[in-house]
């Protein structure tokens, strides 16, 4: 396959590829071959952008072959929404075909004996699982610098971070290697790297996608999310992995509508009747003026699409980061207790049980994970629980109420910047709290459990800027409706 053929294939969106494969217009092996070629060209491996930790080209090839056979002999094709579409999955989502190590030493070499529900659904839809992607260890970070195997680099400027923690998946999609990749987020780890890499990143409503097989960081905040090269790629990917799962008690028994219902933008004013909220707390005086300007341009585009723009207030927004950095570490300190060197993962041979625990864990966990476990242990410990954890959960309730009131007042979606800055330089944020503030506009949706997405709205100094759309619980449909219209209206200017 020559370069031109590869380039012709990787610009085809996932839905089109799948439809061609289903109709046997295109071999089920073709898109995979292009992805493998692009993976090399874009240099996603250990010595390049370091976006990929494990790949399984043979397994993907085998799956593609079986899929092709199915379409030759079977008539039931409609279920294969991702037929022949190569995909990648973040390294904290359990797979049988490749290790699941969460970017951590403590799980070095660990291959899960079961598979995540989301991965099973991808496979069942005909997707071809090609690689596991790099990440901040256990999802703890906003730059993918905290991986045990070293940082992932931003393909637009490799002196900069791709964002995180799902940086590897973002880079895989940004380089065109795959159209769809799974990430996960606890505080913005899909939307923020999507913004930094100039692609679409969506986090569904809490409970929309099963967490079974997603290695837990902060269980009440964790979501599996989807990166797409386009809005439709993201919508299609999310469509496939959504739905109630009996293996996850927090998975919601809510019908999954067609997220792609508005993919064809038919009129010049497709958003008539839609109210877009402009929350003033997300546009503080201190906000980078270039980012503000791109948001304003986006707002104007929405207005000209027929949407009504309404300024609203979410008064507890500034409390979100402190709340998040209590709740997430608290849950993490408990979730990461299972990594003890007894049943799986690395084990430091020791004479006593306490040494076994302490040495295995200290050798296994990196600095940020250690810091957060300590922080989480502290805020849950006797005498501090009420002041920290309990109080944080009450304030979290206030943040949820803010959203509930705004959506109850007739606002359909909110428009905000995804991040307060564009992709920063590697090593630029050595102060942990400064790093935490990169999540300032994204953590609120994790705290409230509402759906959110980032899509490209322009560039500043060549670096992508993401605009964030937030919607009310289980209303991804309207969020995608606005995103489809906006993507259509912005056209090439989204990447300029």
């Amino acid at each position, binding site marked *: 396959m020559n370069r031109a053929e590869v380039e012709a294939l990787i610009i085809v969106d996932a839905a089109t590829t799948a439809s061609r494969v289903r109709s046997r217009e295109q071999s089920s092996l073709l898109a995979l071959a292009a992805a493998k070629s692009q993976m090399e060209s874009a240099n996603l491996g250990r010595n390049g952008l370091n976006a990929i930790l494990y790949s399984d080209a043979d397994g993907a090839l085998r799956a593609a072959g079986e899929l092709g056979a199915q379409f030759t002999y079977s008539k039931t094709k409609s279920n294969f929404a991702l037929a022949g579409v190569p995909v990648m999955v973040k390294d904290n989502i359990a797979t049988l075909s490749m290790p699941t190590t969460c970017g951590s030493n403590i799980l070095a070499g660990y291959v899960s*004996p079961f598979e995540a529900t989301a991965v099973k659904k991808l496979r069942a839809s005909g997707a071809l699982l090609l690689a596991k992607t790099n990440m901040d260890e256990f999802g703890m970070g906003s730059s993918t610098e905290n991986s045990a195997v070293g940082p992932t680099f931003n393909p637009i400027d490799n002196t900069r971070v791709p964002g995180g923690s799902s940086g590897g998946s973002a880079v895989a999609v940004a380089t065109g290697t795959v159209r769809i990749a799974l990430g996960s987020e606890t505080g913005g780890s899909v939307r923020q790297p999507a913004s930094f890499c100039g692609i679409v990143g969506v986090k569904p409503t809490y409970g929309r996608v099963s967490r079974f097989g997603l290695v837990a960081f902060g269980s009440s905040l964790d979501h599996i999310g989807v990166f797409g090269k386009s809005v439709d790629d993201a919508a299609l990917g999310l469509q496939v992995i959504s739905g109630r799962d009996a293996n996850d008690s927090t998975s919601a028994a809510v019908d999954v509508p067609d997220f792609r219902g508005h993919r064809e933008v038919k009129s010049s004013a497709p958003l008539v009747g839609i109210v877009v909220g402009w929350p003033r707390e997300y546009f503080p005086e201190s906000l980078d003026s270039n980012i503000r300007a791109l948001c304003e341009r986006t707002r104007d585009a929405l207005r000209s699409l027929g949407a009504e723009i309404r300024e609203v207030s979410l008064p507890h927004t500034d*409390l979100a980061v402190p709340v998040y*950095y209590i709740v997430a570490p608290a849950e993490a300190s408990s979730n990461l207790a299972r990594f003890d060197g007894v049943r*799986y993962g690395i084990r430091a041979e020791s004479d006593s*049980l306490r040494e076994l625990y302490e040495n295995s864990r200290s050798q296994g966990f990196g600095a940020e994970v250690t810091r957060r476990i300590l922080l989480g*242990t502290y805020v849950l410990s006797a005498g501090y629980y009420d002041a920290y954890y309990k109080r944080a959960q009450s*304030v979290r*309730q206030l943040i949820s109420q803010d959203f509930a009131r705004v959506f109850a007042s007739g606002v359909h979606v909110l428009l905000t910047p995804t991040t307060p800055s564009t992709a920063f330089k590697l090593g630029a944020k050595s102060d942990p709290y400064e790093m935490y503030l990169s999540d300032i506009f994204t953590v609120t949706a994790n705290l409230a459990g509402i759906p959110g997405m980032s899509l490209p709205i322009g560039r500043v100094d060549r670096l992508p800027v993401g605009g964030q759309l937030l919607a009310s619980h289980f209303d991804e449909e309207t969020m995608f409706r606005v995103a489809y219209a906006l993507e259509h209206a912005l056209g090439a200017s989204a990447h300029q």
Partner: protein
Amino acid sequence: MSVSEKDVRHIASLARLAIPAKRIPTLVDELNHILIHMDVLQRADLSALDENTPAVAGMPLRPDVPGSVPLERRREDFAPQMRDGFFLVPRLDTHGTSGSSADEDAS
């Protein structure tokens, strides 16, 4: 509120993390630098919390029917040390020959 070196040693012990002594002062600073941002929560006005929180849906329950998620790999394939089907740990200093030591700390 702020943490002391003693606090950090205590929580590290609770969390089974071995922290080298020379790392402790740095961690104290880092944690305090984070915790100082949490103080703002103490000033939040909780009177704005809605009294009647929406009715809880409650958790879905599972029928009492065998059929757990199968293990596609043998335990021996992922366990660091197994013998005769048991996971092994350094011999625990304890009374008796078997039992659950739920509340006994293995310090």
